């Protein structure tokens, strides 16, 4: 609707109105605004900044929702590129044939049904306190994050982007794309095990052995649980794994989950142990039908119509 409508327009003053909102349409325009206003905050979907969970944004706000380049999705034989400001709903609508099963399984767990038209994957991983399921799934998928600044760009692997020290994002930099390699993993699982716990695992089997495996647990904290040494030990093991091997591996995951840094209760730790054991047992089965329910081509009609790409 045009601002100067001929019909009766109700005008309401707002005495608190202060910080301007900028909606750049190109990345160059965004970088120009970031340079001229270093104090400005960036909002992709705006759901965190305005939810009352974060610090109230003082000063100018730069909204990314009109930058077409950040809302694109593309897929080649080797990888899937997702623009940082693509909404969860838009990603979900791409469908399970285009998305890796771990990603299509984790999207409904990232935010409530009604928020999927607003919330974005890029925003989810850029907020240190919030990203839980998104980070875990992207770690299991071996995703890369494209970070750009004027005239420069770099790709950062997900574990380095969100390491123990915080986000690998400097001033004047913005996350523009997330690249998910479409490696030939023949098993991919995402399982939400409660409000604070999610299980993501991907594996490739070859000639009865484990050729590659990644097991990542999302926690209710900014950190994830992933043991690369354990993964390296599992690579090359013959399938099916013996009960003792499975128990030892599951116990190692459970021991990591028992750390004080994670808000897990005994039931969560039991779930982490049992889902890991279940996954490892199912890897040895010729059929993958025993895997947790989000495996494979999931009928993902979730939120196809339930949200709005504003």
């Amino acid at each position, binding site marked *: *609707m*045009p*601002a100067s*409508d001929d*019909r*009766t*327009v*109700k*005008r*309401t*003053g*707002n005495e*608190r*109105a*202060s*910080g*301007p*909102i*900028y*909606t*750049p*349409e190109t990345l160059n*325009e*965004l970088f*120009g*605004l970031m*340079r*001229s*206003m270093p104090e400005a*905050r960036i*909002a992709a979907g*705006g*759901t965190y*900044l*305005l*939810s*009352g969970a974060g610090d*109230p*944004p003082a000063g*100018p*706000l730069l*909204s990314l929702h009109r930058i077409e380049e950040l809302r694109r999705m593309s897929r080649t034989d080797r990888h899937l590129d997702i623009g940082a400001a693509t909404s969860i709903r838009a990603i979900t609508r791409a469908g399970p044939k285009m998305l890796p099963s771990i990603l299509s399984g984790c999207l*409904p767990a990232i*935010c*409530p*049904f*009604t*928020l999927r*038209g*607003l919330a974005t994957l890029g925003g989810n991983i850029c907020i240190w306190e919030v990203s839980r399921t998104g980070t875990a799934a992207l770690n299991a998928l071996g995703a890369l994050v494209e970070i750009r600044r004027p005239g420069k760009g770099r790709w950062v692997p997900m574990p380095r982007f969100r390491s123990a020290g915080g986000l690998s994002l400097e001033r004047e930099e913005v996350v523009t794309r997330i690249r998910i390699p479409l490696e030939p993993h023949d098993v991919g699982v995402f399982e939400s095990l409660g409000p604070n716990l999610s299980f993501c695992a991907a594996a490739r089997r070859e000639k009865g052995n484990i050729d590659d495996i990644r097991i990542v647990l999302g926690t209710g904290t900014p950190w994830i649980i992933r043991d690369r040494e354990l993964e390296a030990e599992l690579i090359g093991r013959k399938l099916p794994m013996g009960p003792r091997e499975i128990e030892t591996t599951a116990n190692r995951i459970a021991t990591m989950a028992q750390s004080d840094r994670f808000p897990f209760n005994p039931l969560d730790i039991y779930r982490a142990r049992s889902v890991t054991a279940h996954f490892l047992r199912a890897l040895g089965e010729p059929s993958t039908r025993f895997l947790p329910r989000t495996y494979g081509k999931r*009928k993902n*009609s*979730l*939120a*196809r*119509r*339930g*949200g*709005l790409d*504003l």
Partner: protein
Amino acid sequence: MSGSESPPISRVSFTLNGEPVELDIEPTRTVLELLRTHFEVPSMRRGCCAGVCGACIILIEDRALPACIVPAYRANGRRITTIEGFRHTREYRDIRRAFHEVGVQACSYCEPARMLIVQSILSAGLTPRSEEVQQAVDAVKCACFAGPAMAEAVWEAAGIRNRRLHARKR
């Protein structure tokens, strides 16, 4: 400033229940705050303010969204409908009848949100998938007894609306 192509937004205009409105905003404002403070919409309840409880659900272009999480500037140029505006439509009467026939006993706190959610499902199509229905119904967190019958009410409302539309064609 180098980025002078897009001037900053300082005013926002949208249609609220069919009436065009325009007002100043600031970045921290959400649609919920606007509707409560400037338009005093009675059904706008402040719940979790995190988009989880569903108490403040409104329709933006026929999609159900929690008003507490939608930034005001994202509603610019859109059509917003609250239960006050929706109450005068035939679609409302279909859903009302379905609630009555199925026996949905929603409390006054969550009923507006539940009705708007049903409307958003049915506006997307009269044959919704059961998975979608269940997810949408679960979007409202309330301790009243409406929950279990809600999915059935969605199907019932779809049937009522279908019959009405077919009767009109004949």
